[in-house]
């Protein structure tokens, strides 16, 4: 009896659902921050990914993959704060799992635990999604497609230069030739603080100001320190100092204890200058993300059209040791969606896709369709007499529409409206590519 009553109530409620019912989400609703990717965007994201992969391969970075799901306690070893915004779930034994919130730490885990015998240096790359719980009110997705590279077991300015060069080359290959790369260095800032004898308490407060990018607070804290005038002025303005090697010369002059760290960075800049990156690189000592995590260089890359850096990275020599194998490491992560967004602002309208909508390809012209496909021309086959060919080509953005005309094919090039009657379609279309 009770069963039938509740069944009744259920069906009554179901029938009252309207498209605007706030309780019952619409059929297309997804969890906050999640989204679908449709064919045009998917194709463009794939192109970006292929460009980045190809560049990584040219530098000898071999691809690795890690699972999407990891034990929370494993990742917490590396970065206790990094899991704040991770999706968590439980396994069959009640252990806490996370969807990986970034790729760097899982890849560090992989290198430390699966490749301990590798003589080094190890060059690996990766591509895949990471997941973060979106913050309310901010337009950021929960799934981040990322691609990155790690150079492990190599230290010094030469290794840093390779990482920066690879990042720049990868972005350029994807079409972001105008990207700018910002370089900070935690070891320079630390050396200045050491050299000036700044107390641990004050350092904590300065670090907090730097990480929230609050240069006003940094200046206030630094100005309150009891150190010499010129040194205090330098420290107060440190995160606002930017330019090129002259910035580091100025620091080394005022705080001699920081000279070795500055020299390392000057050497890095020399190496990058030789690669032609002088104008693409900006030294900016205000780039001080995750002070605990990075041990030297901190890298960010920027492009017009993306409101956040398209790539982030740096040197974290202490990370591998947390997984039991001590190795220095430098690397970066590129946000594919940000790169794509920046490219969408650069590129003009997307050209039509190279493909032929072929009326009759499903029946009378089956052999023709097969030949064209074997020759590398995508064929979208329709039945003889199908009148939707033009509408389909317009909806999906295909360049060519073909109909049988006698023993030949009558092909319309939708890019310029030209008409071609051809008995050698494969050669004729191939020549237009």
């Amino acid at each position: 009896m009770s069963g039938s009553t509740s069944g009744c109530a259920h069906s009554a409620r179901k029938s009252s659902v309207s498209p605007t019912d706030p309780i019952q989400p619409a059929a297309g609703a997804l969890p906050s921050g999640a989204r679908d990717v449709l064919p045009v965007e998917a194709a463009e994201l794939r192109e970006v990914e292929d460009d980045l992969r190809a560049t990584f391969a040219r530098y000898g970075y071999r691809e690795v993959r890690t699972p999407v799901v990891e034990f929370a306690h494993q990742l917490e070893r590396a970065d206790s704060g990094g899991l704040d915004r991770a999706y968590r779930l439980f396994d069959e034994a009640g252990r806490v799992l996370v969807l990986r919130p970034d790729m760097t730490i899982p890849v560090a885990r992989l290198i430390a635990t699966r490749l301990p015998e590798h003589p080094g240096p190890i060059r690996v790359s990766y591509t895949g999604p990471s997941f973060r719980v979106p913050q309310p009110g901010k337009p950021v997705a929960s799934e981040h497609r990322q691609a990155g590279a790690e150079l492990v077991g190599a230290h010094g300015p030469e290794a840093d230069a390779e990482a920066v060069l690879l990042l720049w080359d990868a972005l350029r290959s994807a079409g972001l030739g105008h990207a700018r790369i910002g370089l900070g260095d935690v070891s320079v800032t630390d050396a200045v603080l050491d050299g000036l004898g700044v107390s641990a308490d004050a350092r904590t407060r300065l670090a907090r100001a730097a990480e929230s990018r609050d240069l006003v607070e940094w200046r206030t804290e630094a100005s309150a320190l009891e150190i010499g005038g010129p040194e205090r002025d330098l420290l107060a303005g440190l995160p606002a100092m930017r330019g090129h090697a002259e910035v580091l010369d100025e620091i080394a002059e005022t705080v001699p204890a920081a000279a070795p760290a500055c020299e390392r960075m000057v050497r890095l800049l020399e190496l990058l200058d030789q690669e032609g990156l002088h104008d693409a690189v900006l030294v900016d000592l205000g780039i001080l993300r995750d002070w605990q995590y990075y041990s030297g260089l901190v890298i960010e890359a920027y492009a017009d059209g993306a409101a956040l850096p398209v790539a982030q990275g740096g040197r974290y020599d202490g990370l591998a040791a947390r997984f039991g194998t001590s190795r220095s490491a430098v690397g970066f992560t590129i946000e594919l969606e940000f790169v794509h967004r920046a490219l969408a602002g650069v590129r003009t309208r997307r050209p039509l896709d190279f493909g032929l909508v072929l009326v009759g390809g499903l029946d009378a012209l089956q052999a023709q369709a097969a030949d064209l496909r074997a020759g590398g021309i995508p064929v979208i086959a329709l039945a003889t007499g199908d009148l939707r060919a033009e509408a389909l080509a317009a909806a999906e953005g295909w360049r060519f529409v073909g109909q049988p005309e006698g023993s030949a094919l009558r092909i319309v090039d939708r890019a310029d409206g030209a008409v071609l009657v051809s008995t050698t379609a494969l050669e004729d279309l191939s020549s237009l590519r």
Partner: protein
Amino acid sequence: MPLGALYQDAIALLGAAGVDVAPLQAGGRKLVFEADDATVFITTRPSDVPTYVEAGAADIGIVGRDVINERRPDVYELLDLRFGECRMVYATAAGEDPTPEIIARLGVLRVATKYPQIAEAHFLATGRQVELVKVNGSVELGPLVGLADGIVDLVATGTTLRENGLVEREQIFHSSARLIANRVSHKLRAEDIDALTARLAQAVAAEAV
């Protein structure tokens, strides 16, 4: 550009720093103004300024410290512009401060505010439990009509508090207008932004003399 209390001072300071602010002085109902040098000014509610800057719709913005602390935007805070000075305070009805008594007997303090994040952080940091009542205006009314035990709000002179029979009990922070910059613009337009920041810093220093 923040409309409201900071607007005129912001225009004056930008003008003193050599920015062409003529289009802003023309007034009218437009929200976006373009100067002859192609600088575009976007005028908006102060609480939306960090949103525009964080999203890159504006490269830089002027906004009060109170809004920054409440919204916690991911932007660079470059310069204290030293106008729009005021204090974020906790206030209760005049007479003996009822706060210790309420905490002891009821365990939780009820506070009305337009700044729930700031209020929550303040009471958390000082070890007191709090129930926040988010209101959108006339916060001073809260304790008078029994909506809340106290308020967290921004005060400049304290006149409004006094006239409504309230007394400041704790200062949470000192606020003034700040120059903020988008994370990407700050690097891609480093030269422009550094030059403007330097000119504004000079104008602020000149003002202080």
